[in-house]
């Protein structure tokens, strides 16, 4: 494919011919030299190759994370080549943003690009198009169809020290203390020796202190350890930024994290933290219960959860949805914006079933600037109803955790939930 000539060549040659004619008519050497110069200048940039074999390619490099921040940087290299092109017009378009054009020197060039994003999950990061331009704009050639840099960004896992546990850990072994006697846990009590007790467990000091008759033996009993079942249930009905005005206008490219980004981060952070403690974690989304990841633990399960959480996007919820099934005595973590009644209903069902429920509020921090009066009034109504729902959830006995808060506040809330369970 060859470049298409622009009218610049014809214009240059035509002007040159006019000047030559005037030079011959009036005997002016300056016009003659100028006319010839224009003709030669226009003719010299026309080439038979004109960018044939032009190429545009993009190579994406590994994602870089900016410390503990949510912002990510995706480096890429845009390679362009167009034989005999003197300039290459690079057009880059980030989602929701205007196209930026940059003219770089040809004929072969490699441009390093860094795309910043605050979003996780599957996304189009950048659309790239290029145009080769011949000398003095004599011809132009599009470098093939526009190419898009796509990436699946894994959500960021925040370090969590304190984790809430269910009322009664039901597993057989794990990292948490179970209320029943067994091996591996903390000290439970001193108990008279009974058939089945191992001789190693005999506490000779306690026997000497407590024994009344010869043959009395006392054993030192410990608590059993247990893993727990954690059911992560993600409400994927909304995908909203914290800018209230965007809820009406639906601006997707505001460069701010959305509720789905917060939900993915919360789900993955909690899943990672529980898996690190060898607990059983399951994951399901409300709109697609068939895509649930059943309970499990270990490295392969961690990868399965990571990909399942990363691909979650906002979906229309079905009118008649089935209640997600969670393992018996599991800790249910419900991640939602609580902008409708369904999560409240589900929390009530699980509480009635005896589950401990953690309601994670994934709405990003709200920004109310530049709202019109009617938008302000509407937002007050919506946010008031949401506050009522969260109050209902608390009244049911569920704990509410605001995820998009200061890290210290989130850690303090988690610590309070952990102590609350110990007191109870």
């Amino acid at each position, binding site marked *: 494919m060859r470049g298409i000539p*622009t009218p*610049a*060549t014809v*214009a*240059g040659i*035509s*002007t040159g011919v*006019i*000047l*030559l004619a*005037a*030079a*011959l008519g*009036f*005997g*002016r*050497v*300056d016009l*003659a*030299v*100028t*006319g*010839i*110069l*224009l*003709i*030669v*200048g226009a*003719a*010299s*940039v*026309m*080439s038979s*190759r004109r960018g044939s074999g032009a190429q545009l390619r993009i190579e994406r490099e590994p994602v870089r994370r900016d410390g503990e921040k949510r912002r990510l940087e995706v480096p890429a290299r845009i390679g362009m080549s167009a034989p005999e092109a003197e*300039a290459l*017009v*690079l057009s*880059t378009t980030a989602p929701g943003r205007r196209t*930026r*054009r*940059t*003219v*770089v*020197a*040809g004929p072969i060039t490699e441009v*390093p*690009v*860094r*795309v*910043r994003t605050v979003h996780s999950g599957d996304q189009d990061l950048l659309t790239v198009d290029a145009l080769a*331009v*011949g*000398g*003095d*704009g*004599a*011809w132009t050639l599009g470098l093939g169809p526009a190419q898009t840099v796509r990436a699946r960004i894994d959500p960021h896992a925040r370090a969590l020290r304190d984790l809430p546990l269910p009322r009664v850990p039901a597993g057989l072994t794990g990292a948490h203390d179970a209320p029943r006697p067994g091996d591996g846990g903390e000290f439970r009590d001193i108990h008279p020796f009974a058939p089945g007790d191992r001789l190693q467990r005999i506490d000779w000091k306690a026997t000497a202190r407590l024994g009344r008759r010869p043959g009395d033996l006392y054993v030192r009993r410990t608590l059993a350890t247990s893993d727990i079942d954690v059911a992560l249930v993600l409400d994927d009905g909304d995908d909203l930024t914290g800018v209230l005005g965007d809820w009406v206008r639906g601006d997707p490219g505001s*460069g701010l994290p959305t509720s789905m980004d917060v939900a993915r981060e919360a789900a993955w952070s909690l899943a990672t933290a529980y898996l690190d403690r060898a607990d059983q974690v399951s994951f399901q989304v409300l709109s697609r219960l068939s895509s649930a990841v059943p309970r499990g633990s270990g490295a392969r399960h961690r990868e399965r959860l990571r990909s399942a959480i990363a691909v979650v996007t906002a979906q229309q919820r079905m009118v008649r949805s089935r209640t997600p099934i969670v393992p018996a005595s599991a800790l249910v973590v419900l991640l939602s914006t609580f902008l409708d009644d369904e999560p409240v209903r589900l929390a009530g069902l699980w509480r009635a079933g005896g589950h401990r429920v953690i309601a994670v509020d994934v709405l990003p921090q709200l920004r109310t*600037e*530049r709202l019109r009066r009617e938008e302000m009034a509407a937002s007050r109504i919506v946010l008031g109803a949401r506050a009522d729902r969260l109050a209902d959830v608390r009244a049911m006995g569920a704990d509410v955790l605001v995820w998009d808060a200061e890290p210290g506040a989130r850690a303090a809330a988690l610590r309070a939930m952990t102590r609350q369970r110990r007191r109870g």
Partner: protein
Amino acid sequence: MTREEDVQIAVGRTVPLWTLRAAGVVVAGASFFLVPVPYAIIVVVLAAIGAVVPATFTTWAAIAVLALAQLGQTLDAWACLFLVIAHLLHVIGGLQLALPWNGRLQLRALASPARRWLMLQVPSQVLLVLALLARGLPVNGLLPAGAVAVATAVGIVVMLVLVRVLAARR
């Protein structure tokens, strides 16, 4: 709410693309040194229209108007400036046609056009100066300066075309 740029492109030193169009108008402004004010204003206006709407080709019209206005002037060393202006307007006009008006222009992208401009401009200036000097010689009556310039230039064109054709066949 200010937004940080989401896409960072590392291409070194750049200038806004509109400066290329502004440069065309500035170059046309140099015509005030060559021709009377009414003609110079027309040249600048035509160059400005060409900068805003390149598809009108008024940049080349500005060259033609400047050349015709030159006819009313005596032939002297200022003709070298005319050669510079006309050539610059042609190059800038061509780039205006092909490049968008908004965006950034890598300064290195101007190196090739500048090099070619010099390669054509320097011999042309030499030719023009020789032709101007030849006017004072006794051979002036035998060989009109314009005819000499035209013959020489036609030779250059033939040579260039031959070079290009041979280069394309390689």
